[in-house]
């Protein structure tokens, strides 16, 4: 077994990206993801790669667009307000069908919000933060090890489908350290005959572009792109199930919320409540089949989210509202305690009402300006 080392989630992303063959990083610093840029600044010059701190988020995403068009494995990273700035570029990248890898280590919003962990960019990531009809593959790691493995997967999927793969993490997973090993890195490489690498006077010019002034042409590209998206939806959804075999209450959560939820599910089991967890690992494509199956089995769903209720809409859609779905949430940088989630599970199971008691509102480690 490869040696386990202790690493921050952000550093794990950077190291995994390098191992996945990324040699171009363009970014602009913002808390809580700056360790990614710092790591790249240190490493890239030593391995013949490019690290560039651009003058803004907008500049950096367009540098990503350029390097991607040239067929390079390229990435950028930012946090919520920075991703909003990059969204125009993400739309252009989608409209041009080039592969890019983007990381959003979310913080509280809207606006400048705060710097503490959040999951309130779910809509932005899964429904398209930029304009136009497009999708991104959205990966939601729940551990430092997954920060690395899903980074490699993200690069592979981006190249495979010529689209953006985004890691949607949060400040906690980005900042925390856990043991990690890099033994499982499986790098896939894809031919890129479409890339702008120079014709060598041997072929026609390749063109990378998102401008189609003729409506019928633009419509055709959109239909073709959605064919591709359908393939992604059919074949790339990932999720984890925990104690779902005989579950009557299905808790759903991704990222850091799923870790809190897991503790709560275990606590509910200890009280005799048959709770289980479905943790979407890809948020787009959303693991609809797993949710649909669960709807045949469970009495109710509880969606645990660090936002005002975003993924809950996809759960209702996937299950066609056949079972009640309740929300257990904190926002603004707050994280629910396992007790709060347990209360919601108890309420869903009909044990008691799920309102927060005074003691559950604030966990000790979150009191004050932290």
């Amino acid at each position, binding site marked *: 077994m490869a040696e386990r080392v*202790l690493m921050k989630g952000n550093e794990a992303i950077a190291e995994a990206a390098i191992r996945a063959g990324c040699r171009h990083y363009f970014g602009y610093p913002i808390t809580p993801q700056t360790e990614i840029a710092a790591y790249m600044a240190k490493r890239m010059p030593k391995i013949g790669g490019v690290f560039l701190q651009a003058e803004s988020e907008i500049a950096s995403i367009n540098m990503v667009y350029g390097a991607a068009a040239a067929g390079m494995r390229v990435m950028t990273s930012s946090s919520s307000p920075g991703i909003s700035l990059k969204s125009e570029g993400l739309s252009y990248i989608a409209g041009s069908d080039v592969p890019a890898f983007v990381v959003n280590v979310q913080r509280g919003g809207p606006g400048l919000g705060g*710097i503490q962990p959040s999951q309130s960019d779910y809509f932005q990531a899964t429904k398209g933060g930029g304009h136009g009809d497009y999708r991104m593959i959205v990966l939601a790691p729940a551990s430092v090890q997954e920060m690395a493995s899903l980074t490699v997967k993200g690069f592979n999927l981006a190249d495979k489908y010529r689209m953006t793969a985004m890691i949607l993490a949060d400040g906690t997973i980005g900042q925390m350290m*856990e043991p990690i090993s890099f033994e499982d890195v499986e790098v896939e490489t894809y031919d890129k005959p479409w890339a702008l690498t120079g014709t060598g006077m041997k072929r026609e010019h390749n063109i990378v572009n998102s401008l189609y002034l003729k409506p019928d042409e633009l419509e055709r590209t959109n239909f073709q792109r959605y064919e591709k998206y359908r393939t992604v939806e059919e074949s790339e959804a990932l999720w984890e199930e925990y104690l779902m075999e005989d579950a009557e209450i299905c808790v759903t959560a991704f990222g850091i919320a799923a870790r*809190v939820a*897991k503790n709560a599910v*275990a606590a509910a089991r200890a009280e005799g409540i048959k709770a289980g967890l479905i943790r979407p690992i890809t948020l787009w494509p959303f693991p609809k089949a797993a949710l649909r199956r669960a709807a045949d089995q469970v009495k109710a769903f509880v969606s645990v989210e660090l936002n005002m209720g975003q993924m809950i809409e996809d759960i209702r859609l996937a299950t066609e509202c056949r079972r009640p779905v309740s929300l257990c949430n904190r926002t603004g940088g707050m994280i629910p305690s396992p007790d709060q989630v347990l209360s919601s599970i108890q309420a869903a199971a009909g044990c008691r009402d799920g309102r927060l008691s005074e003691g559950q509102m604030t*966990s*000790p480690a979150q009191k*004050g300006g932290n």
Partner: protein
Amino acid sequence: MKTTQILIAGFGGQGILFAGKFLAYKGLLEDLQVSWLPSYGPEMRGGTANCSVILSETPVGSPIITDPDVLIVMNLPSLQKYVDAVVPGGQIYVDSTLIHEKVERTDVDVFYIPATQMASDAGVSTLANMVLMGHVLKNNPQLTFDGTETTVQKLVPPTKQQLVDLNMKALQAGRDYQP
């Protein structure tokens, strides 16, 4: 040991995060599951800083600690903020050079160590955090002082191995302290 949840808190600059990293690495080298979660706000520059470390024989669920088994504090605001969160039967380690208040709870074990003074006396004035760690390892039934030097060697960058001796000096002072 099943799971030990350790919360370390103090001012930014006191080495709170480093102390946590030391415990996490020690757990890692003992083949435990570990997590380390820092506070990362502006408070790290002179305000309050804290760090949550979980050591466990089973995979760590949430890395966020709400009820610590062990609380280690290096300033008064941190003691006041977290004292009531410690589980009954838990332990509180207090740097008594910097904190003059006593803990009123009677259902926890409290250790008062003049860590900052001891570090200063030993000529390692920036390592009060490691003095405390030495005392924690000695007195917590779930932890052990064994393997400390290997951990410090791992933790200190290869180019700065001269710091290993200084850290060990602080750790040993903490281990040997008798109230």
